[in-house]
């Protein structure tokens, strides 16, 4: 039986001069999944993608694709078609010739090339534009040609290097949906590099969050968003409130924590904590409620500093009694806006406990 693991990275390291860009990367990627490498620029995500494609040779570790160790294979033998950020379409070739290029390199018979190119163009909805040149197309169309050029290779894996960053916001959203549809229809394994957390959350089966050359967290979008493993991940994904705390004791999935000046709460947790361990509580603005019900474990008091109307929600900036600023989102508020002294809080299961490693995004 075919192994479920398509891409296996074993202790991959890459050094550029003094710069250790990839630090002990271990990762297994399953067939047919949409994986996103997420992180700010310089975090190593692009370096890893290029190492998989063979543009860089890794200094240590092994890269396995489909059960084969590919460390020593040159890029033209790896079978890892890539969609480049700037598309890198061949300007002197028509759309057809661009898409056919990889097949021509494999010296495929004419009829097969014809049929496969047409199929790939149909997948990206470019049928009929075969004879155009790249400069005669819009940015969105060029992006599709780049996609078709990779799809046509029928490779088990496709690499995408920030392919949407040159499109405008509206088009980006459209292409996002299409890309995900194509991936699911064809059962492709896609590795997608981006620094856009929204892109990552909306498209991926799994997200790999990179932090200075190492993987901070590997998980589903929900896990990454609601259960960030590190402060860095919590900070990088979405907006969140942090408050330092200490675990006093733990019983099963209940942890008693002390936070602020003498405040205490019993929170739900999946992990086990040592007594007196320094932790950070991460609370999303949408998990906080103004005038919280009695049963909410976590409670604070403060003064509204300012507020901002964002359409579906009102965002409040609140200064608590201890001088710390909080962001609280209120949904479906109609015309009411709060002012002056307010109480706010969150339910026990909406607060996420993170070890305090001092690392911030």
């Amino acid at each position, binding site marked *: 039986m075919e192994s479920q693991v398509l891409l296996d990275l074993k202790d991959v390291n890459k050094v550029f001069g003094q710069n250790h860009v990839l630090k002990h990367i271990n990762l297994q990627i399953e067939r047919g999944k949409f994986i996103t490498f997420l992180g700010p620029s310089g975090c190593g995500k692009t370096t890893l993608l*290029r190492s998989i494609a063979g543009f860089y040779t890794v200094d240590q570790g092994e890269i396995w694709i489909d059960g084969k160790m590919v460390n020593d294979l040159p890029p033209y033998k790896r079978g*890892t078609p*890539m969609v*480049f950020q700037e598309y*890198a379409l061949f*300007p002197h070739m028509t759309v057809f010739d661009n898409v056919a290029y990889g097949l021509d390199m*494999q010296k495929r018979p004419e009829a097969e090339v014809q049929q496969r190119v047409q199929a790939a163009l149909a997948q990206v909805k470019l049928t009929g534009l075969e004879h155009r040149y790249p400069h005669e197309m819009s940015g969105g169309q060029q992006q599709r040609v780049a996609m078709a050029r990779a799809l046509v290779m029928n490779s088990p894996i496709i690499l995408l290097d920030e392919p949407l960053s040159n499109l405008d916001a509206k088009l980006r959203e459209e292409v996002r949906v299409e890309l995900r549809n194509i991936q699911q229809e064809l059962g492709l394994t896609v590795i997608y590099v981006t620094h856009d957390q929204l892109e990552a959350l909306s498209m991926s089966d799994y997200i790999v969050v990179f932090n200075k050359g190492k993987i901070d967290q590997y998980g589903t979008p929900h896990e990454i968003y609601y259960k960030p493993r590190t402060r860095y991940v919590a900070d990088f994904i979405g907006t969140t409130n942090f408050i330092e705390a200490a675990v006093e004791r733990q019983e099963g999935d209940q942890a008693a924590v002390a936070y602020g000046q003498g405040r205490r709460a019993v929170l739900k947790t999946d992990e086990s904590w040592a007594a007196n361990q320094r932790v950070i509580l991460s609370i999303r603005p949408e998990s906080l409620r103004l005038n919280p019900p009695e049963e909410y474990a976590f409670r604070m008091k403060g003064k509204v500093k300012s507020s901002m109307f964002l359409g579906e929600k009102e965002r409040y900036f609140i200064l608590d009694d201890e001088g710390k600023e909080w962001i609280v989102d209120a949904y479906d508020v109609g015309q009411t806006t709060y002012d002056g002294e307010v109480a706010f809080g969150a339910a026990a299961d909406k607060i996420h406990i993170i070890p305090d490693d001092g690392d911030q995004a």
Partner: protein
Amino acid sequence: MKEKKGTRESLSRLLKDPSSLVLVLTSFIVLILFVIYPLIVVVFTSGFDNWGTFFSKPRYGRALLNTVVSSSLSAVTATVIGFVYAYAIHYSNIAGKKFFRIIAFIPLLAPSVMSGLAFLLLFGRGGMISQWMNSVFHIELDLYGLPGLWIVQTISYFPLAYMTITGVLRSISPNLEIAAQNLGARGFRLFRTITFKLALPGVINAFLLVAINCFADFGNPKLIGGNYSLLAVEIYGEIINNEPGLASVMGIILVIPALLVFWLQNKVLSKGSYSTVTGKPVSGLKRITTSRSTDVLLFIFNALISVFIISMFAITVLFAFTKNFGRDNTFTLDHLMKVVFSSSSPAVMNSLVLSLVSAILAVAFALVLAYIVVRKPFPGKKLLDFSAVLPIALPGTFVGLALIVTFSKGPVVLQGSAVLIVMAMLLKQMPVGYRGLTASFKQVDKSIEEAATNLGANSRKTLTTIVFPMLQKTIVANFVYAFMKNMNTLSTIIFLITPKWVVAAVSIFNYAETGTYYWAAAVAVGLMGATLGTLGIIKLIFRSKVKIFDF
């Protein structure tokens, strides 16, 4: 409210702005007098009879054929060599890339006729290599005529091809080659399907540039061609014979291909080249380079070309500093003292003075033209722009011919003064500066100037504190370029020199033709010294702000 446009509106605005009016009028007068009027005179001077004579005498037909054949051959070889040389520098891992870049730059420091001189010193009758071949292999080397001319023009113009092709190779985004590799391409297939195809427009451009340059070149054909006569040489003969009509006919024939190429380039340029859609290179990914065995071949190729160029310069230097190289190898400064540092031989000094004056005027005029064309409204702007750019398409031989035919008689007579020499150089170089400065002026965003005005600067202050400093690089670069070209031009000024105003390039040519090689070599060394010295001074003044030796 819509901004008012139209001739009357722009005219009335111009009349209210006297300083601009003066600039516009002066520009029109200069360009009409020195560009449009001479063109008309040449066309009228040519006359029907002369066209008849030209087409009936086989001698002229043969010269035309010779010109076409020799310039095409030279253009092919110069382009091939230029391409391989540039490819080696940009796509291989060979050592000594910087050295090879400098070597390709060196021929630009000397007039192309110096290559002809060096060729004679090496391969001419009594040349170093000819004699050696004779004594060792008993082979009588006779390269005068087409073979010699072909070799010399190839070497003289290969730097032009090299630089043109380098520009294109540099603009090819490594992304594309990397993408091709990602799709399974490599080695020669990658080169053939991607790199070469993308470089092709530049290769064609290089070929055309070299071809039209060879087509109208005068010095080397006269020096080495022997009985193999070319059009430019025939023109020279007709001017000496006082047959301006026939000379004009041939001048017009020289211009036609040049204008065609000029038109073609503009057409292609306006359509936009490939490189504009390929985007900027991905950071961190380097260009894919050639294999080790290819590297070895490329290195040998570039080394051979370099040895050839170095030996040409070395033999010239040896002749300049010895009594009579090959026969009496005693070191001497006599030749230099006699033909460079003596008041009776002012050729190098003349070159320096005329080139500097003309280069300064050319850049100043280009600046004025670019300023009024980009920033001021006035009627007839298209005509002014056209006549400012036109000379770029005219071969130097033709510019010189047109000026001498026009100003040796008629209402304005300037023959015999240095004015025509300065003007001829200016006309050849000003369009380059004009184009560059127009582009720079357009790049200085109007909003930057508006910001200065908004902060209280008047229009003169804006110009001196904002615009000119931003243009400084372009101005100096164009001045340097014009100066170097002026120092080395022969074709442009050959008809215009007077006994008092002989310039170095002509002097080299004359001494070489009469066989006094050590004097020709001494003038060549003096000329290169003067060029390098001046560039050094400019470099000292502007330091890192200006890149003169951009390798």
